[in-house]
């Protein structure tokens, strides 16, 4: 079985993240680039499944880490390999800079077709774009079932099952493979690769894929190879978020209740 985990290099949320006010794109030089936490957790869950599967003799599970990201973010894929992925696919192309969600979905779908995965696992949202729609878009393009926002995941030879939380309760969903799933932060804490894993990662295959390498698959999906000429969604304006204002402290002199009520009413919170 081949499981592709979609991982995403993002600006580290530990530091200040900067948006270029001219282009509206993330200023990646301004902060450290790390693997998005949810995708690290997704990878951990899948690697654990592969390890258990190998141990119990249930069959070989190949874990592939895939990303579409700028060329200089390759160290994050090395980290995915150090954690235990067998190989990695890095879709990197200048023409993909600033690709919107639809474009990203098309290119990822093309690369996933090329890779031929039984199961595609993604996070339910990234800390940079916070789109949260990529898994559903991929499922649509690849004509696969999508089980989204899974809090638990159980993978068998021909199906994937998991639970998802909704406002009203918990539902258990099952999809026959091949399928797309997205998982939440409830996935297990990702392992910390030791020196052995880091050294081993240097020998694992890391394939860099350009748009031209995906021409056949993109054609199969019925989308253009190069779209830089006609972007679908573009940034119209970007502004720096204003500094946070100090909160108002209400000291109780007998009228605090009324003042709090007025404060909430002013902001239409009551």
């Amino acid at each position, binding site marked *: 079985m081949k499981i592709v985990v979609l991982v995403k290099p993002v600006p*580290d949320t*530990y530091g200040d993240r900067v948006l270029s006010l001219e282009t509206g794109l993330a200023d990646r030089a301004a902060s450290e680039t790390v693997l998005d*936490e949810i995708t*690290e*957790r997704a990878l951990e869950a899948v690697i654990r499944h592969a390890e258990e599967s190998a141990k119990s003799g249930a069959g070989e599970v190949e874990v592939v880490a895939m990303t579409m990201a700028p060329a200089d973010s390759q160290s994050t894929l090395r980290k995915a390999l150090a*954690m235990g992925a067998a190989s990695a696919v890095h879709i990197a192309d200048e023409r993909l800079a600033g690709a919107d969600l639809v474009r990203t979905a098309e290119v990822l779908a093309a690369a996933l077709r090329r890779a031929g995965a039984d199961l595609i696992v993604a996070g339910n949202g990234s800390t940079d774009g916070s789109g949260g729609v990529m898994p559903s878009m991929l499922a649509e393009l690849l004509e696969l079932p999508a089980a989204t926002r899974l809090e638990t995941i159980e993978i068998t030879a021909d199906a994937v099952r998991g639970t998802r939380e909704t406002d009203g309760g918990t539902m258990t969903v099952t999809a026959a493979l091949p399928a797309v799933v997205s998982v939440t932060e409830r996935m297990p*804490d*990702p*392992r*910390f*690769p*030791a*020196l*052995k894993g*880091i050294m081993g990662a240097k020998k694992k295959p890391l394939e860099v894929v350009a748009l031209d390498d995906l021409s056949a698959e993109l054609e199969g999906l019925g989308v253009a190879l190069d779209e830089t000429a006609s972007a679908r969604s573009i940034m119209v304006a970007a502004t720096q978020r204003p500094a946070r204002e100090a909160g108002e402290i209400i000291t109780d002199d007998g009228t605090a209740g009324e003042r709090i009520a007025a404060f909430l009413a002013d902001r239409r919170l009551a």
Partner: protein
Amino acid sequence: MLVALAIVGLATIVVAIARWFAGLEPVAAFIAQYPGTYELPEGAPVGLPVWLNWSHFFNLFFIALIIRSGLQVRSERKPPAYFTSKRTGHKASITVWLHTSVDILWVVNGLIFVVLLFATGQWMRIVPTSWEVFPHAISAGLQYATLEWPLEDGWVNYNALQQLAYFVTVFVAAPLAIATGVRMSGWWPENERLNRAYPVAWARAIHFPTMLYFVAFIAVHVLLVLTTGALRNLNHMFAAKADDDWIGFLLFVGAMLVTAAAVVAARPTLLSPIASRFGKVTAR
């Protein structure tokens, strides 16, 4: 450069003043009466045993790792990895795990040291046994300031200032570091009354200056060891003998290399296999 010049200038002035002061008649008489060293009690052991040499080595080895990891804990914003204890389920930065783990080894080594110190009578060398220690210490301090350093035989007895410094380090600074460290650690019980009686802010305010004391002590200690008969001193503390040969020096160099290697190697990727034996190491 300017700072160095200022320090040299200031030191020269201090030495000049100290020499003038020590030359005054009553002061000279005081120094003659209190030469810097007083008699050890009856039955005090002569020389340093091998166990004490080992204890001293482990102490310097652990304290180097403790100071290094402590500074890392202090400056760390994002932990490089997390350690979750198998026993308690407590999760903390792997740097905190390193710091507290080496702390345990250091404390165990220290306890063995103190027990053996009292069992063998070696305590008499580093615990003041007479009020005379104070005039002798003042005299020794004055003599250090004149650069005409007190003559001594560290194999038999320390001068009073040395004795006070060692006593403060072993019986004041180390317990203070432990008491404040435990307060900030995950081992401290979450008890409302206990926390109010001993606020964590106190521990935090004292722990760091205690480290600064240790660093200052180490700097002065090493400087004096190397400038007051280095080969002999190193033979005392690293080869348990009173000769003038190079054996102690070679053992000292070996100890420094081992310690430096440990400090360099104490990084998350190499620590995680060790930490994994006691719990779970995760990236988040």
